[in-house]
């Protein structure tokens, strides 16, 4: 009898009590919302991600009761998660296809409202030692590079338009996207519109199979790869290239002029677009003389009616901030301020959200 008492250690029971207590606390906190803050979650395109994340952190100062969490994981994932009801709002460079809107109606339980939040241009950024920014690429040149017909930087198609530039005999590394991306969709949409060879060899869409090159994840992954690989060229949103001091190519537009990417040249293109009622429009090959050829809006996807009233109000407040004060931050990060008619139409659409 005394043997058992000696060996009976005091440990098991207190540990059991503590474990149960910890389990109870965790179970309680799962349902408890610590603090009065409303948290809204969004995910989607990496194209506007720097801007949305900046808006999220600025908006916290405007309304400390709302925390906005945006994760840039690619337009494809953003739309999927939004239609499945996993996030409160989505973001996509290609808005949503009709089938996706239908699916959102059935699984997320309601209509979707697409609101253009900002716009930007897609550039071809490159890293060639010794070559200055502003390399002129004709349509034949950049399509040829992307399908793999042009393999080195000193190829005649590139040299023709750039007399006086010393192009090295360096192999071209094309950098593309590994994830499903609205940026890819817009970019390949333009290339397919411009070249039937591109349509045949690559096609267009959020996720395509490129015949050459390495792939990075997100606009940021592609930027990092271009920065670290001599001889690389890839497609990224203008802000990423500008903020990381990448050299950008001047692209030949439909009118035959070489236009350098900038907030102004993108704004010129945007000014000629008239948005339809559902605010979804893509301009694949603008006609104007000074238009930069690859420009797109990017949309925030919201539910028409939110089950949780607090969340609905928080989302509306955030998007309203984005459409008003947020537009001033946009050019700092390389995005285009929305034209005022677009803002008016967007705010009207926002009003329909409950």
């Amino acid at each position, binding site marked *: 009898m005394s043997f058992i008492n000696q060996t009976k250690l005091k440990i098991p029971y207190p540990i059991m009590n503590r474990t149960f207590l910890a389990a109870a606390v965790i179970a309680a906190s799962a349902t408890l919302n610590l603090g009065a803050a409303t948290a809204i979650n969004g995910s989607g395109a990496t194209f506007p991600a720097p801007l949305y994340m900046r808006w999220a952190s600025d908006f916290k100062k405007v309304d400390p009761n709302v925390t906005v969490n945006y994760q840039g994981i690619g337009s*494809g994932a953003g*739309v*999927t998660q939004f239609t499945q009801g996993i996030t409160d709002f989505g973001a996509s460079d290609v808005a949503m296809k009709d089938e996706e809107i239908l699916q959102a109606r059935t699984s997320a339980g309601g209509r979707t409202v697409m609101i253009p939040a900002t716009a930007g241009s897609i550039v071809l950024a490159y890293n060639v030692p010794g070559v200055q920014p502003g390399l002129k690429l004709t349509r034949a040149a950049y399509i040829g590079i992307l399908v793999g017909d042009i393999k080195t930087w000193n190829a005649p198609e590139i040299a023709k338009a750039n007399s006086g530039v010393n192009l090295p005999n360096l192999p071209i590394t094309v950098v593309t996207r590994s994830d*499903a991306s609205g940026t890819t969709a817009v970019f390949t949409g333009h290339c397919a519109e411009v070249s039937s060879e591109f349509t045949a060899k690559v*096609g267009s869409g959020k*996720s395509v199979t490129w*015949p050459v090159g*390495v792939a990075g994840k997100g606009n940021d992954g592609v930027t990092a*790869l271009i920065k670290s690989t001599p001889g690389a060229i890839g497609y990224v949103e203008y802000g990423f290239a500008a903020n990381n001091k990448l050299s950008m190519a001047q692209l030949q537009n439909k009118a035959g002029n070489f236009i350098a990417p900038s907030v102004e040249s993108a704004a010129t293109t945007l000014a000629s677009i008239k948005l339809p009622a559902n605010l979804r429009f893509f301009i694949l090959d603008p006609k104007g003389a000074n238009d930069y050829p690859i420009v797109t809006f990017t949309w925030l996807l919201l539910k028409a009616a939110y089950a949780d009233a607090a969340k609905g109000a928080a989302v509306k407040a955030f998007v309203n901030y984005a459409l008003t004060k947020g537009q001033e931050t946009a050019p700092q990060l390389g995005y285009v301020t929305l034209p005022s008619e677009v803002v008016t139409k967007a705010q009207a659409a926002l009003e329909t959200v409950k």
Partner: protein
Amino acid sequence: MDGKSITAGSSGALREYRPRPDFFRAGCWIAAGVTVALLGFILGEIVVKAWPAIWKFGFGFLTGIQWSPNRDLYGVLPVLIGTAASSLIALLFALPLGLAIAIFLSENFLPHPIRQTIRFVVELLASIPSVVYGLWGIFLVVPLVQEYGAILAAKLGFLPVFAGPAYGNSLLTASLVLALMVLPTITAISRNALIAVPPTLREASYALGATRWETILGVILPTAAPGIVASTILGLGRAMGETMAIAMLIGNSQRLTWSLLSPSNTLSALLANQFAEAEGIQVSALMYAALLLVLMTLLVNIAGEAVLRRAQRTVVGLK
């Protein structure tokens, strides 16, 4: 009587003892059952989610070369080749190195403290998270492979394995880092196998006049061979399942290529990159790939365990 008996309680007072169901034993049985069921649950869930793709693509999935979500074409042959190639190349580097370290740790070439340090170092290598290997690989290994790969492609580019252009994020980079990650597994199991060889065999060999290395190569290694083979197989299993470092280093390309210096992909990296954004049939296709991965790693691990068990039985018999 009637099944009840009198027994002494802890305070000394007499109490009736009624046989009660042992709840604790039942709880333990349930816990054990849940563990076994977990494997079935995982496999079942994956098969269910993969079924649409299995039905649609069948075996063509394994031989298809195109992975184009926008055209609904899914084939994982390049990815399977990438998985096999990266694992085998990693083993190619890790096996000699791991074996050398295991021999070093089981013999007394150098004093005990140095051996303990090396053992500690190898364990430390094993505990470093995969992402940190990836981060290190991005900033150290990628530029190295880019630089020397370009030279390799220039000199030996006529061989399909070294065909240029040389990318930094390539099969070679991922395989090198993978070799480092698999090294501790091979070392630990091989060392156990070498130590388990009975001292009598070693002494007999010395008595016959063999030098130390003749003993190692002629007696100890052949005896420990099953254990070393087991370590290789288990290392292979670990290599196939490795995800993060590979996803960060391999270049993520689904193109069929025979060159070590080109970007490639593995099953696990494919899942890591594409899973979050897949929809519709792409989810099924990725689940099909996940099923292939699970089956491959299970088979390899079962084989490894079987060989290991046989190795342990052989040595026991020798004593």
